[in-house]
């Protein structure tokens, strides 16, 4: 099925892209890989008269590591690029592994991290791990940039803290403290995860757990494995086509243990 007709704009700078979004207001959408938005536009779930293609805005590409160890990911980075990026593989192997398991190879080759986060489909992998890693996103607008923690960025089903007219330009992941380990495990029968759990094992022996796809956005679970066991029956979860709430709660227990084992080996 074809999307409704639209004008395709191809800015080459962030400023040009922001000006186009300001000019066309809610008739415009940013567009990067298109793996989410094009499918929605084909189904006519959303219609935009103006599509602002970001793929020629080169400053939105690439991964760097700052002097303080923060990994900075340009929002146009594809999942396939991140899975194979030398900096990500060295300093955030858990992220590279997660990235290599998103959807299928065609989606990873085309889909971008920025698009994934801004679309905010609740059954997604990156947001859960990014929350556990204490990551932030940087949003650029006409009047400048602002930084929002991942935990606050996704607000609900397909809803984020990004205002119309803003662009997600990069994701910043602070360094894990020395000796800390992270891992992400997910499971699903469909293309997307029915549930995903990220675990971070901190140097002092304490844990941080986040779970995704249970409800409309990632949630922090508990600080110890025992707590997850005790609370498993009460974890907030919605049943949907990926499984019942009870099934998802069961998955969380299994996935948390798998993620813990991955941190410890």
């Amino acid at each position: 099925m074809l999307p409704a007709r639209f004008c395709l704009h191809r800015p080459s700078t962030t400023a040009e892209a922001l000006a186009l979004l300001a000019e066309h207001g809610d008739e415009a959408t940013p567009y990067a890989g298109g793996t989410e938005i094009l499918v929605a536009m084909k189904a006519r779930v959303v219609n935009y008269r103006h599509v602002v293609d970001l793929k020629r805005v080169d400053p939105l590409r690439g991964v760097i590591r700052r002097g303080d160890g923060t990994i900075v990911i340009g929002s146009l980075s594809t999942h396939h690029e991140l899975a194979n990026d030398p900096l990500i593989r060295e300093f955030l192997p858990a992220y590279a592994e997660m990235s290599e398991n998103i959807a299928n190879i065609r989606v990873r080759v085309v889909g971008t991290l920025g698009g994934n986060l801004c679309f905010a489909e609740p059954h997604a992998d990156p947001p859960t791990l990014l929350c556990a890693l204490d990551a932030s996103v940087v949003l650029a607008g006409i009047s400048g940039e602002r930084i929002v923690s991942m935990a606050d960025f996704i607000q609900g089903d397909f809803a984020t803290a990004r205002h119309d007219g803003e662009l997600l330009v990069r994701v910043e992941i602070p360094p894990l403290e020395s000796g800390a380990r992270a891992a992400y495990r997910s499971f699903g029968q469909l293309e997307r995860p029915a549930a995903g759990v990220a675990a971070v094992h901190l140097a002092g022996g304490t844990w941080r757990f986040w779970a995704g796809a249970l409800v409309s956005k990632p949630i922090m679970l508990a600080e110890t494995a025992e707590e997850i066991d005790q609370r498993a029956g009460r974890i907030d979860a919605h049943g949907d086509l990926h499984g019942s709430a009870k099934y998802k709660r069961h998955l969380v227990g299994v996935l948390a243990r798998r993620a813990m084992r991955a941190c410890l080996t």
Partner: protein
Amino acid sequence: MNNNIPLISLGFMLNGQGVSIDVEPRELLVDVLRDRLGLTGTKRSCDVEICGACTVLVDGLPVSSCSYLAADVEGRDVVTIEGLAQEGRLDPVQRAFVKYGAMQCGFCTPGMVLAVKALLTLHPHPSTETIRHFLRGNICRCTGYVKIIEAVKDLAEHQSGH
């Protein structure tokens, strides 16, 4: 015809030859390939990037042409199933599929072959696990996966290079 939306003059390489064509911004790559350029080896099936029947290679990497704007192949190198055979001789991946009978109804085969082509470029000697992981996104409704994986394993063992 289209409410004053300008057409895009698109130029790209298709199976080794330059192509110039005007497209609407909303036109999808699968439609341009099939309906306007007559290359019907690329199949549309699920239309939502899950099944892999519409797989083509863009700069050597697999994409779902059903959910990919034709405008986005500007200046790029596109390979469809029609572009694999060279001088009348099937590509080694195609020959392996024939040797192993790695097809049943054949509808998923073009996408499957192109996915394998990309797999062997990225991973010249893939493990069985890597093969299964990579082909996870290509669905065979006849469920003929075993022969396909056998064909790829054979290729992986005998492929020249490192």
